[in-house]
């Protein structure tokens, strides 16, 4: 499956992904209308700022193969979609026990206070590319299969090597 891959070295911490995510998961799906909505739309992706390194890192659901959250959910509200392999959450089954939040290794299961249920990344059903990825101005977020992503990384690495090589260094 395609996932939201992160390239932290590119993140500027502009939080565009957070807003895009909240807007995508709003009633109106439009920024200008979403700001007025209540309950106010919840984001599912988080920019974590690391003061010591003055760096920002986007953290979002990894849709783990063997997802702890699905294992512990007592009501089956969290489950893995067979075809898409997505880890999905059905609010109507959620009892807000927050066991999922406790076991999530990335801390990306949030809370919709008003609805008293969990909220997590759903990879924006009905969208070619998830809103956060589309919103990222620096391509710190990439929507790709793991193998393709490694491909991208390889290409980057290769480029670095190439730059390092002086003409004639082969001799």
């Amino acid at each position, binding site marked *: 499956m395609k996932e939201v891959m992160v390239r932290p070295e590119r993140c500027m911490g*502009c*939080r*565009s992904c*957070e*807003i*895009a995510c*909240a*807007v995508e998961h709003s009633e109106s799906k439009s*920024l*200008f209308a*979403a*700001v*007025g909505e209540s309950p*106010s*739309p*919840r*984001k599912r992706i988080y920019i974590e700022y690391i003061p010591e390194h003055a760096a920002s890192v986007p953290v979002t659901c990894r849709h783990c193969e063997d997802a702890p959250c699905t294992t512990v959910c007592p009501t089956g509200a969290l489950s893995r979609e067979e075809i898409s392999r997505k880890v999905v959450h059905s609010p109507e089954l959620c009892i807000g026990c927050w066991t999922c939040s406790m076991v999530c290794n990335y801390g990306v299961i949030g809370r919709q206070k008003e609805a008293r249920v969990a909220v997590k990344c759903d990879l924006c059903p009905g969208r070619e590319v998830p809103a956060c990825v*589309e*919103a990222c*101005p620096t391509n710190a977020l990439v929507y790709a299969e793991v193998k393709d992503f490694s491909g991208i990384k390889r290409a980057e690495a290769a480029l670095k090597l190439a730059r390092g090589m002086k003409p004639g260094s082969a001799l």
Partner: protein
Amino acid sequence: MKPKAYERSIDPATRAMLLKAEKEGIETAWDRYEKQLPQCSFGQLGVCCRNCNMGPCRIDPFGEGADKGVCGATADIIVARNLLRMIAAGAAAHSDHARDAVLTFKKMSGGEAGSYGIKDEAKLFSLAAEYGISAEDRSKEEITAELASALLAEFGKQEGPIQYTRRAPETRLRLWAELGIEPRGIDREIVECMHRTHMGVDNDATHILLHGLRTSLSDGWGGSMIATEVQDVLFGTPEPRKATVNLGVLSEDKVNVIIHGHEPILSEMIVEAAEDPTLLKLAKEKGAKGINVAGICCTGNETLMRHGTPIAGTFLQQELAVITGAVEAMVVDVQCVMPALGSLTGCYHTKFISTSPKADFPGTNRIEFHEEKAYETAKEIVRTAVENFPNRSPEKVSIPDEKQECMVGFSAEAILKALGGTPTPLIDAIAGGSVKGIGAVVGCNNVKVQHNYGHVNLVKELIKNNVLVVTTGCNAIACAEAGLLVPEAASMAGEGLKGVCEALGIPPVLHMGSCVDISRILVLASAIAKALGVDISDLPAAGAAPEWMSEKAVSIGAYVVSSGVYTVLGTVPPVLGSAAVADLLTRGLDGVVGASFAVEPDPFKAASLMLARIEEKRKALGLKA
């Protein structure tokens, strides 16, 4: 799938040039806009503050993150401060333009600017009269000189009133006084904006916005109005005349000189220089059939209104004009000139000539302009263009056929004249209901809206509903391109309006000039209100800026509203980050100045909003629906 060009503009000429650009791999504003997407949400909501270096600060619009800046400023405060700075910049642009006009006027009176003279004596005297300058046995020069200094004084004034605000109806003046938003001096208000928005000064949204209104008034009834009046005195008050617009006005076989920007002071001279025999001779030698001057944006509107000089296009067509490959010189002064022209002209033979001492751009031939030797400079510029003609490479040239006839030149005076000297016929028409009211539609282009779609459809919708439309700026050009500025366009109007137009032989949409000339609309509205003995806010009138983009438009919007005219914006201003500010602008102001803003991107919905407001006012005046 339709090519992008079709989604980007409704205008065939524009589409054609966009296709050419695509083919030649030339980048335009639309492409750059796409590269900008998605645009920063914080910016769009106006909740980003860079006013001090503890920041930049941002407010989380969804209330999960920061709800205050470092200094403690809330979304309300930040949005209001940012808006005030936009108003200040807009007002500054208009007023500084005005200052230059007045300075030229002053130099002329002192005989230092020989190229200029008085074209409209009547207006000179009426203006002088307004300032209480007696014409009793005094020479024209003396009066001119005294008027010039009086006008110049308006900028540095510390205590009001600015003279022309007196043109507003009594009730309006009283209201402004009560609200304490009567502008005191043009420069003072703008400076105060910058002071108030400095870290730790004015931090109450309402308080901030009230000053915004005051500053905008110093523009509408100050800077802009002075610019209009002085330019009329110097270059003549426009009168109805015919002309042509759109990229098609560029000539295959003549030297094409584009004048782009906002001031008439230089362009007037260029138009003159283009008829200079020596230069025409030179053009012939270079193999050109003549010299063709065409305008873009408001510099274009100025010469269009006074000389019928053709117009090549609106704001978003500036790059396309160059892309025709047929432009020898793109001559610019100030405002709305895209720096992109530098690299763009580099792809063609076009010379990019910047002239204002204030404004330079990448890749220009600089020919700085000074009033003292205005005509010489103009000739030099035209010569440069002519000499560039041989460099034109025919294989790159492709000029769209679209050119559209139009009738322009409807200054307030011209309109009254057309009405037979008094507003009464119009008032009767309105009272009688054949004309429902007046719609003032103005403003720029904006890549966020399909080019001209907002302008044209909104205006068509209004006239269809018997609303007489007055227009300026790029909206006027858009309407002209869409063939709405010809008397025949009356056929597109509702029965009542159609009748009136045919009776008077005028188009249903009246071109009143450049964007500073929105002051003409104020004067007209004020005249009608006075004739009816009511306030402007009581008139069955509404304004709109369907494709606005510049800070000037924000200032315009603000003074139009605080003058009492309900205004619909076609693109969303960066204020929605604060519910309080948004509410004040769209509702609260009604209770304060009797008018407010609305935001409606869809031109048809926008039209119905305006119509509703007009109906409401008619009812209030006891006119039949």
